[in-house]
């Protein structure tokens, strides 16, 4: 019960932050990526604000033995810098530049009823399912 409240609260705070920051405006995101044209640097400050807070707080939090509602801190399993990482990030970047949405802002914007965000979240979920399917068939082939 408590944990669903903190989860929803964190999501709410995250989403409000995305809303205030301007990340939910595809035109603004595309302007931020348009460094060879009319570059709009303002979204750089989103990154600065987020990192300034999280860099300090995450270090304080991880001094604890465990989080409040779980038995351990979950760290990413992979450390390898491989082709998947670079290729995946490149494909994501192309999609980000085309649509002006990354996953968080798209999920927030869905609630505004904007058709573009609804379509984006739908095809994004489809893309995730396709990637999962390709990955699953590849690992099966290796066995």
């Amino acid at each position: 019960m408590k944990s669903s409240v903190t989860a929803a609260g964190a999501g709410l705070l995250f989403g409000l932050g995305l809303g205030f920051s301007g990340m939910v405006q595809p035109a603004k995101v595309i302007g931020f990526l348009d460094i060879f044209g009319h570059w709009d640097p303002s979204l750089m400050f989103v990154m600065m604000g987020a990192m300034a807070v999280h860099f300090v707080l995450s270090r304080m939090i991880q001094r604890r033995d465990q989080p409040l509602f779980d038995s351990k801190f979950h760290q990413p399993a992979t450390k390898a810098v491989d082709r998947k990482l670079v290729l995946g990030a490149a494909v994501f970047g192309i999609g980000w530049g085309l649509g002006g949405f990354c996953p968080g802002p798209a999920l927030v914007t869905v609630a505004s009823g904007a058709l573009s965000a609804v379509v984006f979240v739908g095809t994004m979920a489809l893309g995730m399912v396709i990637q999962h399917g390709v990955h699953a068939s590849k690992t099966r082939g290796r066995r």
Partner: protein
Amino acid sequence: MHNLISSYGFPLLGGAMIGLAASLVLLTHGRIAGIAGLFGGLFLPGHDARPFRFWFVAGLVGAGLALSWVYPTAFSTSRTPSITVVGVAGLLVGYGTRLGGGCTSGHGVCGLCRLSVRSLIATMTFMVAGMATVFVANHLGGSQ
């Protein structure tokens, strides 16, 4: 002055809220606040903590509802790409974030804060790819 606040103050404030929310996720659930990962793990097989994922995503959508009620100008849809382009973009973002193991929040905010080399390389890659895409789209698409 007003211009300065809306251009840099709001992004800075919004960013700080995002950083605080990511810290809250770490403190309460011990997880990385990567939206692509949290969202994908909601419906892809082989993932744990589904209630947490569900409530977090519900919070994100709830924020959208609250914003469209009290601050609807947050969602300016001026110069938004066409539905077809946005649909293709979603497909690429979904595929790419799962293959690369993260998005702007997971690799960008959380990963860079953890000083992860993987996340640094991913972040530089998606930034450059995004910039190159906008450059090509603006020059070949003639949208501006």
